[in-house]
């Protein structure tokens, strides 16, 4: 995916709810318009990350399969 990423979060090996906890913490340190790339291999993240975006009003840009994990892209909009 051709997206300019401002920060990468390594959540490989983490289980629910830790990827979301770190996602929320990281977003607090970022400014509107910045993009966070999350690496996670937790099955729950497929649903959790878009659900988190919907609830908080941030933008879910998409996901991409990598070697044994997924990359998720979230844009801070608020």
């Amino acid at each position: 995916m051709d997206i300019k990423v401002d920060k990468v979060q390594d959540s490989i090996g983490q289980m629910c709810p830790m990827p979301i906890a770190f996602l929320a913490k990281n977003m607090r340190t970022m400014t509107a318009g910045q993009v966070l790339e999350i690496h996670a291999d937790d099955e729950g993240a497929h649903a959790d990350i878009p659900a988190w975006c919907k609830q908080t009003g941030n933008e879910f840009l998409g996901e991409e399969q990598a070697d044994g994990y997924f990359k998720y892209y979230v844009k801070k909009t608020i």
Partner: protein
Amino acid sequence: MEENNKATLMVMSGDMDKVFAAFTIAIACAAAGLDTTMFFTFWGIKAIQKGNLTGKGLFGRMIGVMNRGGINVIGPSRFNFLGVGRELFKKMMSDKKVAPLEELRKTAIDLGVHLTACDTSMKVMEIRREDLIDEVEGVLGAAAVVGNAAQSKVQFFI
């Protein structure tokens, strides 16, 4: 904090599995931007105790021994087998890289979850404020909890 942007979790159970669910949900609530409060009552208070022996009178001390608090000593609601089950669950959870309860509680605190305790339960079981971990923000009554719940988008009773 805007109105109705809260979450309230009433944690009555002190079982490992239920406390686990409580902290997981609390973290998800706080991560979603909700001003989250956990209210620990009766057996639930064990999850926010330091773990020292409690009680003053005979019955209070008996409860302090038989129902000892502390997040690392609470056992699952089923298959505890005098603590063997608890250690098995801990091992299975760490093998699967699930965060231990203590880490979940720390993460919840880091995300700004407010920990509160029930005044009446503490008096009945002879648990003092200093028997609770320092992060506990207050000892409340039912009206304060209902007030918070009324402003909450979601409420959980565990």
